[in-house]
Each structure stands twice: as structure tokens, then as C-alpha cells.
């Protein structure tokens, strides 16, 4: 397929501009010479060609509206279309971010209530809705850690992160100036308590933990972990990426977490990936509320107002108030499924993952064989040893069967990892179709390994040279 640039034809245009009714002036007179560029080579196409180009591209795309998308750790659940309806209401879409509070009471009320709902779901005192996505929420959380210790006059230089953690955790810690120290997992997939005790000192700001962890397993010693961290004056951070397993059933706040970020585009069904943008609200317990970003919405009687008056705040971390449109979708979700629905969501997500785990266990190695939460992690080690078929080969073969690959090679502590998260939105028929396909692929790995190593065979673009693409990336179009 040609690029839009290659379809360009000089003089063609997708729109006609009416005759100018103000005096002409030269562009050089109104724009600084330094900012002017020649030959920018923008594509010139007719509207019909433009529409066809992007329609064709979209038909080659894969998303949750096309097929099963078991991308572990990403909670690629279906995004109900009613969200688009509410988010398109002109009362929301026609708002100007500088509109005075009296003009936007509905929007402020929605954000205020959203904070309350999320606080109740997580067992936290308050939330900020500013962070633009999960990693941004993490960064905000660790900035609050930093501010908290500054305020207490303590110098803590290290932050603990388990070996199974999402890569964004050490990045957030390092960006805030902490030295990242790795905590080991034990053979059953929990945090190694002995190692944690050894590492947790008065120099350590705290621990960033995902629960359930990235192996899809509930950290069974969570209360002891919280006690170890708190006893040495540290804070406990919850990476809430896996909240879909707990929602309505258990609350991170009750487990001892001081801070949590959520991903509205995962757990709360706002669109994910290119259908985004994301939203990564951050919740804190009462002792950290003063540090939350500004501006904040306050309620005075029935009236909502912005307030900036928080001397200990970490400041503003996003332009305006975050990705508001995503909040509307997540709010719609919470209100439409209700508390019982949220609980049922978590229960079904866990049940679905366990169903897949049990069906595929005879065919792929299960490194941690115990009840999982919302996702299960297999290893392709056996196939790799026997026939040279790796996790990436199986992932690519799934594309031939119309299924999005699971997350592979993560978590890092499982060799040849394949991390499968079905979410609650899939029926048993879909789960069975997926398992049947995986079983067929396991058979192919034995009998026709070459076929899998060449996959995908049915896509517009066949197997790509990923090594060359990474070593010598060429992402710009040249004439």
C-alpha cells in the first residue's frame, strides 16, 4: 500500500477556500523568517482519495472491535459504545477549558464525583484526575513520595521495585532521582519477604508493587509487606494496572497501600491504544492528600469551584485538568454497571483467566501453577527446546488465526513468557475458540515448526525483519 505522500499530486486539494475578503499581506511580513520553511512536501490529495486512504488503513488495523485481544497486563476489554454517546454530548464537547466555573458546573460535578467513586473503589482518601496515562500517574505518585519525605526532613535515596515489575516503575523512580533497587520474587511467584526485609531501610522511600503482580498472582503476604515498609517509615505504592482483578472485591487501601494509580483506559473500559488517549488518576491516603496536584475542585454547598490554595502541593502536572473526555467514558462505565457490576466484572475476569489457564496447562508449561487472578503466564520453553519455536513465533502465528497476540517476553523473570489476559468481556465461546487455536499451534510447533517460524502468512505484510528495523530504523519518508 502506498503512503499518503506517494499519492500526492501537485495542486490537488481536499477543500476549497472562499475568496479572501481581507487585505492580502506577504507571509514574510507576518511570520518570522526563521520559522519559514520551503519544500515541506505536505501531501496534496483530493478528499475522496484522503478518505479512501485512511479507510483502507483502518481496515488493516486490528482492535477489540475486530477480534479477541488477550494482551496481558493491558486489559483490552471491550469499550461499550454508550461511552461514545455520552462523551459526544455537546455539553461536554463544546466546553472551553478557560470557561468560568459557573458555566461548567456539570463537568466539574462529574470530575468531583469521579474522584469520590475511585476513592471508594480503591479505599483511598482522594484522587487527582490530572495524569494523562498510567506511567504519568506513577510519576505523579513518586513525586508525592519525594515531597512527603522532603516535608518530613528525611533524606531517602532508594526505591524498591520487584523483579517482575512493569518497566515504567523503575523509570518513574529514576526520573524522580531515586536509586532503583530490585527485590526478588520467590519460587511461588510472591515477593521474597526475606529479601524485602534485608533491603528496606531508613534510606528507602518505599516499595512500588503491582497487586495482583505481573505473573497474574495475588501477593498473599501483602499485609506483612505493608508492615515491613511502614515500620521503616516507607510508603507503599500500588501500580493499579491490574485493578481489573480486584475492583469491587478488595481494596488496595485496605491492604496497606498509601498511593495507587489507575488506568481508566484499562480497568474502566475507556478505549485503549490508538483509540485513546489514556487517563491515569492517582489516589492517596489521608496523610498524602496535601501533596496532590492543583488545581482541585472543591464543593461549596451545591456549587463546584476550582481551588489553587494548597501550599504543599507538587504543583500542576498536566495542562488544564487531564484528559476529560476519557473521564466521561469511565464515569459512564461506573454509573452504568454500578457497584455490583464492577464486582461481577472482576469475578468474571478472574474466572476467564483461570479457564484459559486450566485448558492450556497440558500444552504449555505453567511456571507458577496456582490459582491466577485476571491473567495467566505460560512459558514456551518446552517448544523452544524441542523444536526451536519461540514465544514470538507463536504470537505471530496467532495473527494468522485472526487473534491478537498475547504479551510476550514479559514478565522478564519467566523465560519465553506468554502472558494472556482475556478480560471479562469475552464469552466462553471466544475463550474456547482461542484455546482450540492455541492447541492447534502447539501441535504445529511439533509437526511443522517451519510454518510457525515463517508466520504470519496471511497478512498484507509478512514476517518483518525486527532486528534490522531496531538496528537501522528508517521511519521518515524521502522523495
Amino acid at each position, binding site marked *: 500500500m502506498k503512503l499518503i505522500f506517494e499519492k500526492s499530486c501537485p495542486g490537488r486539494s481536499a477543500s476549497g477556500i472562499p475568496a479572501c475578503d481581507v487585505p492580502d499581506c506577504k507571509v514574510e511580513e507576518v511570520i518570522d523568517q526563521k520559522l519559514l520553511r520551503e519544500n515541506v512536501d505536505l501531501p496534496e490529495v483530493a478528499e475522496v482519495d484522503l478518505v479512501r486512504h485512511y479507510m483502507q488503513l483502518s481496515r488493516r488495523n486490528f482492535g477489540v472491535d475486530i477480534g479477541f485481544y488477550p494482551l496481558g497486563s493491558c486489559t483490552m476489554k471491550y469499550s461499550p459504545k454508550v461511552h461514545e454517546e455520552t462523551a459526544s454530548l455537546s455539553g461536554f464537547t463544546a466546553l472551553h477549558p478557560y470557561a468560568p466555573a459557573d458555566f461548567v458546573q456539570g463537568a466539574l460535578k462529574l470530575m468531583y464525583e469521579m474522584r469520590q467513586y475511585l476513592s471508594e473503589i480503591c479505599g483511598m482518601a482522594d484522587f487527582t484526575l490530572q495524569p494523562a496515562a498510567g506511567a504519568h500517574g506513577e510519576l505523579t505518585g513518586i513525586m508525592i513520595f519525594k515531597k512527603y519525605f522532603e516535608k518530613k526532613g528525611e533524606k531517602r535515596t532508594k526505591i524498591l521495585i520487584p523483579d517482575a515489575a512493569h*518497566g515504567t516503575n523503575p523509570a518513574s523512580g529514576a526520573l524522580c532521582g531515586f536509586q532503583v533497587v530490585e527485590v526478588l520474587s520467590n519460587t511461588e511467584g510472591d515477593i521474597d519477604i526475606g529479601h524485602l526485609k534485608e533491603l528496606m531501610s531508613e534510606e528507602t522511600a518505599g516499595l512500588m508493587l503491582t497487586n495482583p503482580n505481573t505473573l497474574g498472582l495475588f501477593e498473599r503476604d501483602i499485609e506483612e509487606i505493608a508492615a515491613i515498609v511502614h515500620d521503616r517509615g516507607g510508603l507503599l505504592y500500588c501500580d493499579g494496572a491490574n485493578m481489573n482483578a480486584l475492583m469491587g472485591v478488595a481494596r488496595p487501601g485496605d491492604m496497606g497501600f498509601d498511593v495507587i494509580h489507575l488506568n481508566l483506559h484499562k480497568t474502566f473500559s475507556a478505549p485503549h491504544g490508538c483509540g485513546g488517549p489514556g487517563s491515569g488518576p492517582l489516589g492517596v491516603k489521608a496523610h498524602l492528600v496535601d501533596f496532590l496536584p492543583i488545581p482541585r475542585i472543591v464543593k461549596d454547598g451545591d456549587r463546584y469551584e476550582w481551588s489553587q490554595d494548597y501550599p504543599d502541593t507538587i504543583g500542576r502536572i498536566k495542562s488544564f485538568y487531564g484528559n476529560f473526555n476519557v473521564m466521561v467514558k469511565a464515569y459512564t462505565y461506573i454509573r452504568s454497571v454500578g457497584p455490583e457490576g464492577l464486582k461481577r466484572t472482576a469475578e468474571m475476569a478472574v474466572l476467564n483467566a483461570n479457564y484459559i489457564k486450566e485448558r492450556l496447562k497440558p500444552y504449555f508449561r505453567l511456571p507458577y501453577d496456582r490459582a491466577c487472578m485476571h491473567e495467566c503466564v505460560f512459558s514456551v520453553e518446552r517448544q523452544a527446546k524441542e523444536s526451536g519455536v519461540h514465544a*514470538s513465533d507463536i504470537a505471530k502465528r496467532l495473527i494468522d488465526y485472526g487473534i491478537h497476540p498475547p504479551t510476550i*517476553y*514479559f514478565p*522478564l523473570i519467566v*523465560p519465553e513468557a506468554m502472558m494472556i489476559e482475556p478480560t471479562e468481556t469475552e464469552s466462553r465461546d471466544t475463550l474456547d475458540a482461542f484455546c482450540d487455536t492455541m492447541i492447534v499451534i502447539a501441535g504445529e510447533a511439533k509437526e511443522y515448526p517451519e510454518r510457525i517460524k515463517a508466520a504470519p502468512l496471511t497478512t498484507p505484510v509478512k514476517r518483518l525483519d*525486527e*532486528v534490522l528495523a*531496531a*538496528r537501522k530504523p528508517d521511519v521518515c519518508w524521502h522523495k
Partner: protein
Amino acid sequence: MSKPNPTDRKYTNEHEWALDNHDGTITAGITDYAQELLTDIVFVELPEIGKKVRQFERLAVLESVKSVSDVYTPASGEVVAINQALADQPEIINKDAFGEGWIAKIKMADAAELNKLMDAAAYDLFIKEETQ
């Protein structure tokens, strides 16, 4: 199958090797077994010359198609040379991890630290246990 581990050097349990140059410096790199696990290396973040490092702390970062991994220094000291060729051709590590694919030379702060490392026979056994 990975290449045999040379007996002229010492090994860490994070799969780095240290070759004593007998002039107060060591040459450090990753083992052939490690490069095989990492698969094709696409980027190497080298330390700066003059950087002070402490044993088993981060020396360099390797990026493969699969993941990003830290390389830990087998001994404390100061980085006195880096393998600049890796910046343009990271694949040298895949081709010759024990030779041309060395990562850095370190002027040791304490040569006795090398006693904490494994010899080739112990490392052979270590890999064998890890793969089981």
C-alpha cells in the same frame, strides 16, 4: 548451543565475565550463554570513561529485540576503556561475546574482589542448574 566458557577468566551469576589483564585492569563482557538468551542485540549503552563503578552494580545496558537488560560490573573500580565499536555494531556481542564483543575495561579498586566470582567449571554448573 552456546560456545564453551573460556577457563582464562572469572564469571558472575548475572552472566558477565572478567578477564584479568594482570596490569591492575580487567576486561568485562557478557557470556555467550547470555547473548544467546538475549537474542539479537540492537543497542548498547556504554558507560563513560572515568566512571566509577561498584561491584555488581550497573555497567552498561543491552537492548535486544526482546528486552532491555543491565550488565553488571564484575569488579569495582574506574572505567578506563570502552568498546566503541559496539555503538555502531551491537551484533559483535552476538558473534563473539568472549572476544571482540568485550564491553569495558576497568581499573580495579580491589583485585581480591575477583575471588568472589566463579571459575569456568563453576559457571558451567551454574548454567546447567539454571536451565533445569
